[in-house]
């Protein structure tokens, strides 16, 4: 009971911060007409590409289909790369600002162990889990480790659940690989 309330407070603060940062991103980027039209446009093109890939063609026309798919993919990539990199840059700024700001704030509040680890961490994990803590007991857990777990486990879930920003397809568009075909 000594540790748990501190942990729960950190988790609650992280969850609230995730919602707030998504809100900031929504008002800054996601609700703008340019982002919405980009999203619509890319999703339409991606659907067109899916349909084209699923079309069965005669053996002789396989090459023509490959060329059309490649052309469409490279046009998507061109469109997506520039516009989406700006969006991702803005996302990174907001996440960085919230991440660092919140960490600095909370590291002033929580200077004692906030939890007990049920395992002895490896040395590189211990650097984080025992950060700024006195004593040699490596199962003492610092705020930094709980905060990192919240950022890794809860924040992506909140982002995914709200589903305001980049869809999975849009992210994949930035990473298109050349298509491969069975011969």
């Amino acid at each position: 009971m000594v540790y748990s309330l501190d942990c729960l407070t950190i988790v609650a603060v992280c969850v609230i911060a995730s919602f707030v940062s998504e809100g900031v991103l929504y008002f800054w980027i996601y609700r703008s007409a340019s982002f919405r039209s980009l999203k619509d446009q890319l999703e339409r093109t991606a659907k067109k590409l899916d349909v084209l890939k699923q079309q069965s063609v005669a053996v002789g026309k396989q090459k023509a289909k490959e060329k059309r798919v490649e052309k469409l993919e490279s046009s998507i990539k061109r469109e997506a790369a520039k516009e989406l990199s700006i969006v991702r840059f803005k996302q990174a700024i907001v996440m960085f600002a919230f991440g660092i700001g919140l960490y600095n704030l909370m590291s002033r509040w929580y200077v004692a162990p906030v939890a007990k680890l049920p395992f002895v961490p490896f040395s590189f994990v211990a650097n984080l889990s025992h950060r700024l803590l006195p004593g040699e007991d490596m199962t003492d857990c610092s705020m930094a480790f709980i905060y990192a777990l919240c950022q890794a486990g809860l924040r992506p879930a909140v982002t995914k659940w709200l589903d305001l920003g980049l869809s999975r397809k849009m992210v994949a568009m930035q990473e298109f690989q050349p298509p491969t075909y069975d011969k």
Partner: protein
Amino acid sequence: MQGAVTNLRQTWEKEEMLDAIYWLRHLLALPCGIVWGVAGLTGAYALLSFVALMGVATLAWYRTQGIDEEDFGGHQVLQAEGLGPATALFLLTWIITYSFVRF
């Protein structure tokens, strides 16, 4: 999400399948973290047993859907989906429950 649990052998889009696996893994991580914490399991084997359980449960689930894994990028893509966030969520609930129950 509801469809992932209730509708067996429905047709899946790739994005829907990956989303379903993502949320199912989170649904698994939360109670497992609590159970591991209440049971007082400790050490690396407790963590590895969760990772193994998650892999087997995911494999069992998408096998019951009767899909061809290759249509969704293969086992590697399906098994990698949500692995990091679900493991982090498991660690978080395990540590909090363990600290709450044992100290």
